[in-house]
């Protein structure tokens, strides 16, 4: 009799266990397969985001593959993403080259249950689950103008170098900076006089900077959101003997502008920590997969080693930790 009850109990447990098994599988909290592609591989900035993401994946018990073409060409990025989808990962992390061109393949990925997270440069909103934005457009605009104030506290004419008229973040930064110089008392000392395009190309940025200085004799500061153009402008200023008269600033890797800060030809540049940005991006996708984070407006992503980050409209998680490098601080960073 007793044994019968035990057997029934065992069978019941087995049934419950079997029923619970799929539910348990859905609530997997670790061991995800993540795949990441930057705009292009080989550039120190993106390599660091990849290393950061790998570190997060290792800590969380996931695997992460980092791959991509060696130049920023959208059809190659789409091909990479297509190859990712074929390999059936749990999550995809990317920095989009063209927000719309990557949308069809990403939508297909989401239909297959893959969680898609963007960082650095966003994809079209319906094509991804979340976007880890390094700085909000306004933060970026303000930190660049703050750096320009360190260069030229008395203000004067400023000019912008963007990658191209189609690069959404550069154009948004320039628009907000222009607005701020008209509306915010702190920045009213500046007068924007020109915007030029240099395609994130070193030689072209140099030429553009030289032309800007020739076209505007009273130019005080050249500002660029491009980590390629800002150091090129600094080089052009030094090479054409404008040191002390014109300053370059904007976003640049510390390693690229260390020289100019240390020899005094430039005073300040801005950036953020790419390693941590990649770390947070991978963390966000993992937490979403594990069911511990839903990127709805107001939700907070808790990353123990990096901080707490708030989600804004359309699943935009703002990382938002700008850094300003000066002669005194630039030595602390190794990227």
């Amino acid at each position, binding site marked *: 009799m007793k044994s019968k009850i035990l057997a029934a109990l065992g069978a019941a447990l087995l049934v419950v266990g079997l029923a619970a098994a799929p539910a348990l599988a859905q609530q997997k909290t670790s061991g995800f397969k993540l795949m990441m592609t930057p705009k292009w591989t080989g550039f120190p900035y993106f390599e660091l985001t990849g290393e950061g993401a790998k570190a997060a994946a290792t800590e969380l018990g996931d695997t992460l593959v980092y791959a991509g073409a060696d*130049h920023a*060409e959208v*059809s190659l990025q789409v091909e990479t993403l297509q190859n990712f989808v074929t390999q059936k990962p749990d999550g995809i992390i990317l920095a989009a080259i063209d927000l*719309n061109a990557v949308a*069809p393949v990403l939508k297909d990925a989401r239909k297959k249950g893959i969680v898609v997270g963007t960082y650095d440069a966003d994809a079209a909103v319906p094509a991804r689950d979340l976007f880890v934005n390094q700085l909000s457009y306004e933060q970026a605009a303000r930190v660049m103008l703050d750096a320009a104030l360190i260069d030229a506290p008395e203000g004067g004419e400023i000019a912008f170098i963007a990658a191209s008229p*189609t690069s959404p973040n550069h*154009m948004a930064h320039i628009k907000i900076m222009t607005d701020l110089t008209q509306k915010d008392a702190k920045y009213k000392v500046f007068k924007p006089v020109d915007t030029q395009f240099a395609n994130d190309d070193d030689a072209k940025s140099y030429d553009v900077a030289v032309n800007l200085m020739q076209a505007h004799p009273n130019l005080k500061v050249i500002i660029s959101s491009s980590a390629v153009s800002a150091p090129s402008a600094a080089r052009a200023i030094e090479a054409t003997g404008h040191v002390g008269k014109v300053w370059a600033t904007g976003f640049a890797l510390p390693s690229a502008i260390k020289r100019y800060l240390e020899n005094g030809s430039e005073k300040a540049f801005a950036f953020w920590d790419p390693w941590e940005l990649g770390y947070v991006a991978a963390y966000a996708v993992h937490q979403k997969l594990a069911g511990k984070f839903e990127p709805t407006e107001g939700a907070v992503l808790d990353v123990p080693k990096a901080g707490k980050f708030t989600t804004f409209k359309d699943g935009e998680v703002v990382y938002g930790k700008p850094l300003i490098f000066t002669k005194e601080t630039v030595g602390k960073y190794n990227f």
Partner: protein
Amino acid sequence: MAAKAKRQWPFWEFTLIVAILGAGAWSSTLSPYYLSVDQLFGSTRAFIIPGLLALGLAVVVSLGEIDISLASIIAVGTVTLSKFSAAGVPLGVSAPIVVAIGALCGAFNGLLVAKWRLPSLAVTLGTMGAYRGLAFIIGSEVGYTDFDDSYLWLGSEYIFHGIVPVSLIVFALMAILVWFLMHRTVYGRRCFSIGLNTDASWFAGVDVTETKIRAYALAGALAGLAAIVWIGQYGSARGDNADGSILFVVTAVVLGGIDINGGRGTISGVVLALFLLGTIRNGMGLANIGGPTQTVVLGSLLVAGVLRPAAAAALARLSNPARLKAAGPQGVESSGQE
């Protein structure tokens, strides 16, 4: 015809087929995801656009000329399509117009090259920039994505139970068309004869100028068609569309056995070279091999393609020195006009 084809062993085409099979086998060991029908057909989509350019470029190169402005013509095409879509023009009207605009851009290249005898590399380097600039002007500052669904069909749909991309069928039709043109018509023979010896062709009564302009116009028209495929595939029209894809196109043409100096080669070789490059890139991509490695492989294949005629000549000299003496150096290689 048959007897001639038998004598001229299409050595290079067979080499390419063997290489494709080898690359496929290698890819299937690289990645467990490689060997599946959907995957294989789906992966061809990445090569349709460069493939259409390669077909047009093959005709231009057979004349001993080059056109590196084709990718910029795609951009002119995509932004023009975006204007038509925004204005509500049906694709049936806008598609022929865009193909015609492509042909016009190409014909302009041809005019400069053939009529005024300017070096084609310099001319198309110039128009590469000019057409790109034009695309940015037409496309204004922001990309356009709000395409009517009919515009997307050609580049995004699949047929036969959702396995075969429509764009692959389009490419196959165009490949057959260009093959027929180059190997079965008088026009094709004229192209190869101009590539071999322009002056001799002129003395023989070939209208060199017109033949060249037509070749460039054809390449431009195919770039216009590629623009329509682009819109379906990526749903995005911007001035920078297809920027930087020309290395792949030139590699396919040269590796396919079209002599870079003109006069020799086959369209089937170009198509096979596209499949070979596609297979290699698909396999490496699925194995997540880094971009720099892939570019090195692509560049090496381009060099191999350029070296091929010299290597083939050396090989022929070794294997059959007597025949060489009798036929002269021109006789060793297949002239491609079988």
